[in-house]
């Protein structure tokens, strides 16, 4: 997994609540057996018309936001299905950080497994960042995961919370599975205890 420590990039405003996983990546693109190549289909139904032409006023189609690496959105971002294709598509497009007042649990989890930083902030803070994002490509935001800060193009600094274990894994690009396999003796011991206590499982 790619590490995430610092990011300076363009933030695209998406002031919609309940951006669901079907919007992020519609099901017709879930038929892949790979993790890559989904970026062109990110937000497919909002981004393209029925004939595959770009819808000019969709934020990621406008010249100033085509290279956005940060997304600022409304409440309950990523609700809906467990499809990891949603963070895969964001990542493949180039989005490394999503900022919103709240996230759906599974999506939030999935981001960390793919080197994307989801930041949940109170609505007033998101509003400040949304206004900053609306300034376009000259307004770049700085995100510093180690310091847990976001700095707007005006130099205003906003701090955010993050679970220490997830932060550690993201900064070091750690693979969860390898970490857990180091605990194999504890898993073996658990299985031995469980098969005595609940042999029917």
């Amino acid at each position: 997994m790619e590490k995430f420590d610092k990011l300076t990039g363009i933030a695209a405003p998406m002031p919609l609540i309940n951006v669901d996983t079907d919007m992020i990546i519609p099901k017709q693109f879930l038929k892949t057996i790979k993790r890559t190549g989904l970026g062109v289909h990110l937000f497919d139904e909002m981004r393209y018309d029925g004939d595959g032409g770009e819808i000019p006023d969709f934020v990621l189609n406008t010249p100033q936001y085509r290279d956005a690496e940060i997304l600022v959105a409304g409440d309950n971002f990523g609700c809906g299905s467990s499809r990891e294709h949603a963070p895969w598509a964001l990542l493949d497009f180039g989005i490394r950080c999503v900022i919103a007042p709240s996230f759906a649990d599974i999506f939030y989890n999935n981001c960390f497994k793919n080197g994307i930083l989801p930041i949940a902030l109170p609505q007033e803070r998101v509003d400040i960042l949304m206004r900053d994002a609306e300034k376009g490509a000259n307004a770049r935001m700085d995100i510093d995961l180690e310091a847990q800060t976001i700095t707007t193009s005006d130099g205003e600094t906003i701090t955010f919370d993050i679970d220490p274990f997830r932060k550690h894994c993201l900064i070091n690009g750690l693979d969860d599975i390898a970490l857990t396999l180091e605990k194999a003796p504890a898993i073996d011991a658990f299985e031995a205890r469980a098969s005595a206590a609940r042999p029917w499982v």
Partner: protein
Amino acid sequence: MSPKTLYDKIWDAHLVDEAEDGSSLLYIDRHLVHEVTSPQAFEGLRMTGRKVRNPQNTIAVPDHNVPTTPDRVDGIKNEESRIQVEALDRNAQDFGVNYYPVSDIRQGIVHIVGPEQGWTLPGMTVVCGDSHTATHGAFGALAHGIGTSEVEHVLATQTLIQQKSKNMKVEITGRLRPGVTAKDITMAVIGATGTAGGTGHVIEYCGEAIRELSMEGRMTVCNMAIEGGARAGLIAPDEKTYQYVQGRPHAPKGAQWEAALAWWKTLYSDPDAHWDKVVTIRGEDIAPLVTWGTSPEDVLPITASVPAPEDFTGGKVDAARRALEYMGLTAGQPLSEVEIDTVFIGSCTNGRIEDLRAAARVLEGKKVKDGLRAMIVPGSGLVRAQAEEEGLADIFTKAGFEWRLAGCSMCLAMNPDQLAPGERCAATSNRNFEGRQGRGGRTHLMSPAMAAAAAVTGRLTDVREMM
């Protein structure tokens, strides 16, 4: 000992390791797998030379992509779908997991097959790369959806890294009125709490109206816990649960059954347990519901009218405006005058035998409105066989419904069953998101009886008028 909730008890019984920062390693008893969210996980195992730690507790079944028409025996025509299903065939074989291929009568939607085969038991931890894994919570199992990286993690380690969620109690008191079903309960809860109301929580559903539900009904309720944002939904096991489980192929037998039963009987929330959030709804207050918008929280009684964006506050004003435009509805229009083009009865929410019986009761001796497309997709091959045996299939086909083979079908339209742009559907599934049932398609969620009533009249209909 401090009082515990049911969730606390299951959590404690599966804790392998707890780190200082609060992240825990939880043991997973059952891992269900389908073709859409697993190929990259198996590929990951191959690339790292890892094995499936516990293939005997891993159960795979293709469901999302499979066609539901009889010609599927000749193979899947859509190439990408076929590749995905074939990848699961191969992965199941290579890694030695339990498998129900398309040709097996036990094949069906993963959340219907698991309980049906007795894989899902009270007090277990159950995961699947699918958000509707919450369904299995109906058995008092801690069951939730995971992403593909986590699927790979569970395959390799039989554990999951988790943060403990908060406890939320949803109590449905009293009795339901005639024409009101489990689907209406679960939609009423989402309507009351919103799609983010349960975020960060595990919900336990309780109260007389929940106790009165059959296992099928309880699965419908838990199925949509995720639509309320919750990590999982739970219902404490009771006699109905044990009866449903007993005798199923993978349920414990003999002395093991007795031992299991003794443990299962300890699985309830202690009277003084702490709840972080409590929601109470009176069963008598719930009416047959339909959705009008593009979020499952957009629910209203069938007797209501389409709301106006100005009825809402905050971000919901714009969301409602966008939803009405997408749905092609006008504020003030009575919901019961909204005409539909299609009816879809099925999905892991409402594709079980009881759902088909409810639809058949409404459809007996009636006809689907002229020009309407109507299909029933049983949740598994066994549900289908039982419905045929009970004569339900006859009622459906005589009424003019298509009687399909098992799969997810038009719930998410990954197979050929899709809505055309602008086509309006009365559906018993769980999501009414934009494009969920096909690009530009318009979905109204409701119970099977309500969907059957809509099929007869050609518009959203109060099923109580037909009872």
